[in-house]
């Protein structure tokens, strides 16, 4: 194990996959000569050349479609979309082609592409650079969606996504690229399905993914220290398909549940997890589960308003305490 930053873990996965297979390519805006906005491809242009580490024009739908077409003839493209807000422009190719081509060709053709993109609210980037899109992509049949919450996952999920025969969307976060964590020294492939119990506890489950896993972990410490509540924290690193069995098993252990997401509530990850509670483990619940979500607004520029729009560990704590009458 060695400590590395999230971006370093991504860079290592890129480097290993480029080294492993001459048909792996990386493409995106400023990922070559400039080394990537978040450094995920730093130095790889010099190492592998312009044919394989490709600076694209600012044409998100076009270069995503190009990656998909290349994947039809055996190329394994890793496509970086600089901000998930720009991925809206590429939804045509992602949704109409990559996700559907296996099905509508009767299994003849697949689009084994990887799309990496940071989605999330950083620091005063305004409404058009702060959106979260995972809710959109996880609703599309034929597309896998994963969202690493730490460097180990960032490395291992990208490695598996490159090797997997399905199109995989990797949802990252602008605020997490400098996060440090342990990554195995040996090559490692993280499963693309499932969930992970990252803290054990008997009283309540806090479900999170990507950045909200960290709010849940912070909240769990406070709940334990100040309120004597032991929370289990479950990391839903796979958003599509969601781990129904893992969700059900945790609720069966704790009988109370919170789902925390950075995005707005309507038609979101929380909504979907709530539906799974209903369908899989309704009678295990001792109290109505609660969603912790963003305000349903375009993200404001003003720092105070921006902070008010996005949930935090405090909101997770408050939501958890609401399920323990007399504890607050």
């Amino acid at each position, binding site marked *: 194990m060695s400590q590395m930053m999230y971006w370093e873990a991504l860079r290592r996965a890129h480097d290993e996959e480029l080294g492993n297979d001459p048909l792996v390519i990386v493409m995106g805006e400023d990922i070559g000569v400039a080394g990537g906005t978040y450094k995920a491809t730093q130095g790889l242009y010099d190492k592998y050349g312009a044919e394989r580490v490709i600076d694209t024009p600012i044409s998100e739908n076009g270069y995503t479609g190009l990656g998909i077409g290349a994947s039809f003839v055996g190329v394994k493209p890793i496509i970086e979309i600089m901000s998930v807000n720009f991925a809206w422009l590429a939804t045509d190719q992602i949704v109409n082609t990559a996700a559907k081509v296996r099905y509508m060709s009767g299994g003849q053709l697949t689009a084994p592409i990887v799309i990496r993109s940071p989605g999330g609210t950083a620091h005063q980037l305004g409404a058009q650079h702060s959106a979260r899109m995972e809710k959109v992509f996880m609703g599309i049949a034929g597309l896998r969606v994963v969202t690493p919450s730490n460097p180990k996952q960032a490395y291992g999920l990208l490695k598996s996504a490159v090797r997997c025969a*399905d199109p995989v969307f990797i949802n990252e976060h602008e605020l997490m690229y400098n996060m440090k964590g342990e990554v195995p020294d040996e090559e490692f492939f993280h499963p693309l399905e499932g969930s992970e119990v990252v803290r054990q506890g008997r009283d309540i489950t806090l479900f999170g993914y990507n950045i909200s896993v960290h709010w849940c972990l912070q909240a769990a410490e406070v709940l334990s220290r100040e309120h004597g509540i032991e929370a289990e924290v479950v990391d839903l690193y796979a958003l599509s398909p969601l781990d129904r069995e893992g969700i059900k098993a945790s609720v069966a252990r704790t009988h109370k549940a919170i789902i925390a997401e950075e995005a707005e509530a309507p038609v979101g990850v929380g909504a979907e997890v709530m539906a799974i509670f209903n369908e899989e483990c309704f009678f295990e619940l001792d109290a109505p589960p609660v969603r912790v979500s963003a305000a349903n607004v375009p993200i404001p520029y003003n720092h105070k308003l921006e902070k008010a729009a996005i949930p935090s560990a405090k909101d997770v704590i408050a939501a958890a305490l609401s399920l323990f009458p007399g504890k607050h």
Partner: protein
Amino acid sequence: MKVMPGFAQQGVAENDSELLSVTDKKRLLREMLYARRFEERCYEAYVERKIGGFLHLYSGEEACAHGVLEAARIGHDYVMTSYRDHIHAIKCGSDPRAVMAELFGKEGGTCKGRGGSMHIFDVAHRFMGGYALVGGPFPLAVGIAKGLKMKGGDEISICFLGDAANNQGTFHESLNMAKIWDLPVLYVCENNLYGIGTRIDRSTAVQDQYKRAAAYDIPAVQVDGQDVEVVYAAAKKAIEHVRSGNGPYFLELMTYRYRGHSMSDSNAYRSKDEESKWLKRDPIHILRNRLIDSRDLTLSEFKEMDKAIIEEIENEVIGFAEQSPEPRVEDLEKYVLAENDPYVHGGVN
């Protein structure tokens, strides 16, 4: 607006390699006639409700696919197009029975009934699909070309699309990328003068589509798309350019579709006068008459051929599609994701 092209000097053969032999011309005549009869039989099957959804027929445009693909290397080069795709697939080598079975939604179809008329795929013959978002294939075709260039073979990527697709952003994004990376892709613009029901002069600032390729410094020509020999000669030059590593090429073929955009279209937006002018330049009649004039064919031979084709389509093609089984409902969720992919559940470490 230019509704009748006059391209006498463009696209004609300049050397022997761009000429078709009499044997080839007779075969192409049969293939184009087969295509016409196939599409007309689809029309009937649609009226009989054997074919559902949307149905876009190629009647009138046969010389485009046949002339270009005759000049390509079938089964070697990669081909894709829009939703008007049956004939391109058949010319690429797809079994017409499987294409018709696909239109009937049957398990014996090219895509096991999952695709339908707008989504014919036959990867074994390198027909990489029919796509139903206008302009969607532009970047996919550049991507195939990128892969082919990386792998170092001499295959090329050929993308057929209509004139109206050129008003999508993907046209500009894709031509730009094709040029900056000099990728082996041939764009074939089948200019039938209408985008759905809107005439080109009402939707498009520059009506000569080949001129738009100049914005990306891509060589382009416009030729008569109703004369298969002209199309063949122009495509030979275009394909030679692309295969030799000179980068992309844009070939505009002036053509006309006889039916509406799809079966739900009454053609009310076109004048009878315009239609009859184009009917006089029917691609099958042009080639037939030329072969009769040169005494390589008689009218009665042509009629015999036509009769045999109609019978073959009825007995072999429709018969196969009728008898092919429906897909099983138990298989509804098959083909969404890869089955048993080792990277999904870990276990590969």
